[in-house]
């Protein structure tokens, strides 16, 4: 087991881009090597230990790797990007693209996650103990698929375009979601426990369950009886018919 604790020395304004801060990149490295890993700070690259206090405890492969991040990292982007195993715990709000493209492992954010958390995610798990921003589990501009696998749980609310272009995986939002969640869903499954607006537009495949109130239900779904999930009966809709979609939308 190897635990690395990074504590941000001083809160930054211009964002730090920390895609190199991930378990795969840290695993089996001693403190000085981890400290020397470069991150982008504005248009220059600086070493991790210029910005963070680094404490390394133990030694281990990526599977036994845990990174703990303390301090206000609400302007540190891309933490955990592309990681394949191990664990990251962030005790702060965190900036955009946290856990994007990750294929395995787990990220826990004890705070709010800014937009694009878990975007293009392929596996693993992200838990946001707080709110999510825009495009939770979304994709990159122009790309056909956003999230393809793994699971994201947000205990609070999320903003617009949740799971945009999702092609697989699972998202659970305990609170409310903004506009157009699950737009162009092509195989993912989404559960929103709170309220939302205009869900499931252009859905091709996949399932979207909404337990709260749906505002502005889109006129592009056909009603198709009811379905019971975990003992709750939902009205079942199929669509989006304008996309020739065969997705399932369950609402109260």
């Amino acid at each position: 087991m190897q635990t690395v604790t990074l504590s941000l020395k001083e809160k930054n304004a211009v964002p730090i881009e920390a895609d190199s801060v991930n378990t795969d990149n840290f695993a089996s490295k001693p403190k000085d090597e981890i400290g020397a890993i470069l991150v982008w700070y504005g248009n220059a690259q600086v070493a991790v230990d210029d910005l963070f206090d680094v404490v390394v405890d133990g030694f281990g492969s990526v599977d036994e790797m845990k990174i703990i991040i303390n301090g206000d990292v609400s302007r540190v982007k891309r933490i955990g990007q592309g990681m394949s195993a191990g664990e990251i715990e962030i005790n702060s709000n965190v900036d955009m693209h946290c856990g994007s493209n990750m294929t395995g492992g787990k990220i826990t954010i004890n705070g709010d996650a800014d937009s694009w958390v878990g975007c293009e995610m392929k596996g693993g798990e992200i838990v946001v103990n707080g709110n999510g921003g825009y495009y939770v589990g979304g994709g990159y501009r122009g790309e056909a698929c956003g999230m393809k696998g793994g699971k994201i749980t947000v205990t609070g609310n999320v903003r617009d375009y949740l799971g945009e272009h999702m092609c697989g995986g699972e998202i659970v939002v305990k609170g409310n979601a903004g506009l157009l969640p699950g737009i162009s869903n092509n195989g993912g499954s989404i559960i929103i426990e709170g309220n939302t607006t205009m869900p499931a537009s252009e859905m091709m495949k996949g399932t979207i369950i909404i337990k709260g109130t749906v505002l502005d239900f889109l006129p592009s779904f056909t009603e198709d009886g009811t379905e019971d999930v975990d003992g709750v009966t939902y009205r079942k809709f199929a669509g989006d018919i304008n996309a020739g979609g065969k997705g399932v939308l369950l609402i109260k």
Partner: protein
Amino acid sequence: MSELLIKNAVVCDPINNINCVKMDISIKDGKIVESVSSGAKVIDAGGKLTMAGGVDGHTHCAGKINVGRFMSPHDMRMTNVPGLSGKEAPTATTRAQVGYNTPNAFAIGYRYAKLGYTTIGEAAIPIIGARHTHEEFEAIPILDKFGLTLFGSNWQVMEYIRDDEPEKLAAYVAWGLKASRGYGIKIVNPGGGEAWGWGKNVSGLDDPVPNFDVTPAQIITALAETNEKLNLPHSIHLHCNNLGKPGNYETTIASMKLLENLKTSRDRQAMHVTHVQFNAYAGTSWRDFESGAPQVANYVNSADHLTFDLGQVIFGPAMTMTADGPVEYANSRMLHAKWSNMDVELEDASGVVPITYSPKMFVNAVQWAIGLELALLVDDPWKVMFTTDSPNGGSFVNYPEAYTYLMSAKRRTEVIEGLPEMALGRMNLPGIDRELDLYELAIMTRAMQSKIYSMDTKGHLGVGADADIAIYDLKPDSIDTTVEYAAVKKAFSSTAYTIKGGEVVVKDGEIAMTPEGRTYWVNAKVPQANTDAMQVDLAQKFKRYYTVNQANYMVEDAYLPHPVEITTEAL
């Protein structure tokens, strides 16, 4: 007065009948000369393969490609071909680079140069959009450029054909070439662009264009006659009707036959038919779809009035872009893909749709084979221009990969083994064992272009030619290209040297300098009386139908800072 001497080059120069012979090349002031002084800078090619700079006679590099870029930010980060795709930060010599199918303008210049290409031809310029094309040309570093101007659905053209006014037609085409600073006549799905103005298409050579009372066959024939009347350096450049439809090989052959008896004004083909892969489909639907390449190749072998290019498919993501508006709309509906369209007032249409060619898909697998079959079943390489119709069949950065398909049956077999069973029965490729040698490759990638575009300073290394030279890290006397295809691909992917106009622009696969290229255009002279008569009609078009004044329509000199004007006299 810069001099350069390339020693020990193993030269493959088909125009001058030199088949991989070790020799020296002398360069002075950007041209190839008999000899240089003893003070000349020396490059020792050390027995490496040396060819004239490649000429891509049909690529989409300026204008419509910007629509493709605009709709695909994700393309900018694609790294499908390492070293020739994806993002690169700027350096002291180079600007930032992005993209794969739709790279930014800087990357187009650098990457073609790395492949040993020094001249490229944009396949389609709408006259009213020509200023834009030339702005992008200027942004492409290193390479010389030329573009083909669209005339195949142009109102003035169709009216003159209908009204049987050949002199005015010639005057208009000459004017249109000048207005757009174009190099030749491009015809895309003749009449189809106009039909698409109403959401329709023309179904074949004899289906009249709505409201204009001319047929595609008449458009092809009349523009070909005009082409010869104007004595243009290139022939008409035809994208046939019914592109992309099963059974279209018949339309293609019928289109070719139209000009069997055309008398050409120059010693070159009467027509060039483009990206024939997309127009050599047999069958009646996608279910019984199969290769029509043998039928087309048979006809081409029997004919001596035409050349064509492949439009070879490369497996993976590509971006289709063409003035064939109805085809792109149909593609987008069939593929559930994004669709951009641009109808161009009085002149043409166009569309852009992304596509992915998968080796697992039966149709795509057969398409892949058809391009290669065309190249290998046509006996005379001087009739065949190598293209992928970049990025329609695939990005130009895949050319080295495609060369290996042409040069190695072993390599083809490897790919064929991964194709679906059903596709194998619909193609002829597994039974073809022809393997091109370096000489034939040189013909298809530079030498034949010199002839079909009448560019006597391009595509060869004889005295008087431009000193555009590619030296590849490959020794012809010690390589078996039919077996060592990995080495072939590697060598063609980044030159040891690319020399443009006598300057080393690429060394060991890295950009060494980035001079600005030139732009070739044709100023076709016609009798003033004909121009005056034509202008009366044209003035009406501008007054009533165009939304741009004639005074603001023609591309100004400012957009061609390095022009090469080719003047022709009408016959």
